[in-house]
């Protein structure tokens, strides 16, 4: 009898203990919720992953607000398209925590068109964009109006190995063309650093080539599904010729069909590296690798930089444009405070601090004059010039469709030929009409 009673009692004891524990946990949760209400309003800032720069700015702005608000950061996924997916789903569901968001410029129209983004007050726009460079400012507009505030701006440079350029007889103090660097890679038996994988980087490359050749991938992007696809032009053909030549001749190396920005940097740092189009992060990454001891200092000394290559020798190039704009969600319950916080986040001081510590260039002209920036990035003036000439990617609410279609049609690079622009145009038109899967 005793043997049967003891476990039952023990079970009852366990049940009571569990109930007490549950009640305690609930009480703690309720207290936590309650305490949050009593402090300053918390603004959530959805940030793209970086080296901690945005979190630092969030802390600085929270402190500077004198208890008016507190910014908490929430990390978005690593790649731009996944960031867009999460933001769009939350915004469509009316998430009230969407106070401040770091937005990739190509996806701004898609979020602005259905009214997911709060309209920035005129005085905020005036104060935050007075010295913004032209390229980044264009990327923050939709339908002629500014819908987000430019934070940092990115652009690609032509990175080169001085020794290879010298051996190939190229004068890098003057603008170079794609044909010249293709010839140099051929003659020196080296690989070109380009991104041939089926990802956003492919659209970045194609858009840069088409824009540099004087064309546009689409016009009338605001028409949405009825936008004109203008890829089947001379500019499109020139772009296809460059991508196809690099692919067919194996000039991008054997890894080209799966090569993204990071793997092309690794290839560039190796023995076969020659010329590479890539974002400025490669400078910080290469120097970091030298500090860690995984790369030799002589390699960094051999790296030079110039403007993105030209397609036509007599026309300046239109380099790719990237970066981050800051938007406020239309469903945010603290919009006024959020705009106040945005003003703090995008000050030229914060932009130059972010560039010097995280390697992401400012969108403000004034920030480029900062001494810390010039010290960390000797190529700051080249980046600034590149930002002035940069061309945004197609601005349309259907950017994702257009970009994915280009990625599918232009990869692997060895399959690209003179028919690719025409086929891509037809494919995009079908997809936009809803007649084809993607």
């Amino acid at each position, binding site marked *: 009898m005793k043997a049967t009673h003891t476990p039952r009692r023990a079970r009852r004891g366990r049940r009571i203990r569990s109930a007490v524990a549950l009640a305690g946990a609930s009480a703690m949760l309720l207290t936590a919720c309650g305490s949050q209400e009593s402090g300053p309003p918390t603004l959530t800032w959805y940030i793209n992953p970086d080296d901690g720069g945005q979190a630092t700015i969030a802390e600085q702005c929270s402190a500077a607000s004198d208890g008016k608000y507190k910014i908490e950061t929430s990390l978005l996924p690593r790649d731009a398209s996944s960031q867009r*997916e999460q933001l769009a789903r939350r915004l*469509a569901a009316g998430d009230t925590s969407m106070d401040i968001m770091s937005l990739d410029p190509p996806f701004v129209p*898609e979020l602005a068109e259905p009214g997911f983004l709060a309209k920035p007050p005129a005085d905020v726009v005036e104060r935050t964009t007075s010295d913004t460079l032209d390229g980044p400012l264009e990327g923050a507009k939709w339908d002629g109006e500014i819908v987000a505030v430019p934070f940092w701006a990115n652009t690609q440079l032509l990175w080169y190995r001085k020794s290879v350029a010298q051996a190939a007889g190229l004068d890098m103090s003057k603008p170079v063309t794609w044909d010249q660097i293709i010839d140099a890679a051929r003659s020196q038996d080296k690989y070109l650093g380009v991104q041939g994988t*089926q*990802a956003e980087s492919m659209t970045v490359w194609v858009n840069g080539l088409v824009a540099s050749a004087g064309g546009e991938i689409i016009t009338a992007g605001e028409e949405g599904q009825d936008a004109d696809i203008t890829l089947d032009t001379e500019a499109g053909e020139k772009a296809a010729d460059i991508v196809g030549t690099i692919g067919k001749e194996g000039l991008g190396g054997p890894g080209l069909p799966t090569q993204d920005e990071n793997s092309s940097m690794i290839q560039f740092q190796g023995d076969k590296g020659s010329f590479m189009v890539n974002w400025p992060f490669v400078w910080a990454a290469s120097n970091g690798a030298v500090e860690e001891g995984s790369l030799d200092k002589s390699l960094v000394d051999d790296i030079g930089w110039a403007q993105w290559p030209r397609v036509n020798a007599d026309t300046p190039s239109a380099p790719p444009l990237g970066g981050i704009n800051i938007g406020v969600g239309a469903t945010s319950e603290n919009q006024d405070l959020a705009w106040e916080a945005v003003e703090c986040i995008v000050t030229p001081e914060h932009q130059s601090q972010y560039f010097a510590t995280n390697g992401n260039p400012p969108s403000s002209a004034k920030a480029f004059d900062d001494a810390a920036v010039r010290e960390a990035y000797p190529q700051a003036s080249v980046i600034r010039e590149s930002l002035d000439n940069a061309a945004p990617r197609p601005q349309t609410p259907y950017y*994702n469709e257009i970009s994915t279609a280009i990625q599918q049609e232009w*990869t692997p690079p060895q399959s690209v030929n003179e028919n690719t622009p025409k086929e891509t145009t037809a494919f995009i038109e079908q997809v936009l009409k*809803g*007649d084809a*899967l993607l």
Partner: protein
Amino acid sequence: MSTTVDSSTRAPGTQAPKAKRQISDRVRAERKLGWLLAGPAFIIMLLVTLYPIVQALYDSLFSFRLTAPGDKEFVFLGNYATVFSDSLFWQNLGVTLLITVVTVLVELVLGLALALVMHSAIKATRGLLRTAILVPYGIITVVSAFAWFYAFDITTGYVNNWFDWVPGIGPDFNWFASQGPALTIIMASEIWKTTPFISLLLLSGLAQVPGELSEAARVDGASAWQRLTKVILPNMKAAIMVAVVFRALDAFRIFDNIFIMTQGQYGTEALSLLAYRTSIGRLEIGLGSAISVILFLCVMLIAFTAIKVFKVDLAGSGKGR
């Protein structure tokens, strides 16, 4: 042995009416208890599975983009027409079927071999052997996919260097740049990961084959191969079919390995990835739901075919009916 025979032969004759009433009460009580125990889970299951299925069916009849909520339009079966008339769908279906057939077949053969090894291993090594065989199955699929990806990746991988003596493989061989090699790696990873699961299912089937049958066949002069094909395999047909059904349903829904290794590029996309890219990537809820419904119907078809045509008994010898 004799006592059980005795009790079973005595029972129907002497205690039939009483037993019948008792069993009926017991069954009723058991049923009640069964509902009490399984009821809440059943209701939750309905909420979390039936509701999304019905919602997906409803959404699939609309042209609906998440970022254009105002343009929602009823198109009836228009989305299905778009899907079925697109070659991409059929290509993805082909890839999915290829992965399903190849992985299930290879896993079945390897799984059976592993089950036989585990079954005939001496007692002292049995535990260690089972643990060793189960290790891949214990690894999260995403983690194993990354491990395989980094091993074969042209920039970071070591396989190209280790196996450069094999014709066709060298430092410049890009496994993920074309359909054939990429699918081979995806399937190899899938097989490596889930063969232990099949081998466990088969081991339980193997344990149910009476040893006397094998022994009798041996006495009659049957070779090891004959014993396997004529005695052991026919007697574990039920276990084999259960393993095939489980794995086929699983393999047909393959996602993680492809998502991590190739993101579906260069002809490696399976149906579940197409559904994901359409619903989540393009935010085309209507079109994506139509693909999901088709995927669901395919899975139902596999399950139905297995249960009705091949008479797979998932409940195990009719117990619990």
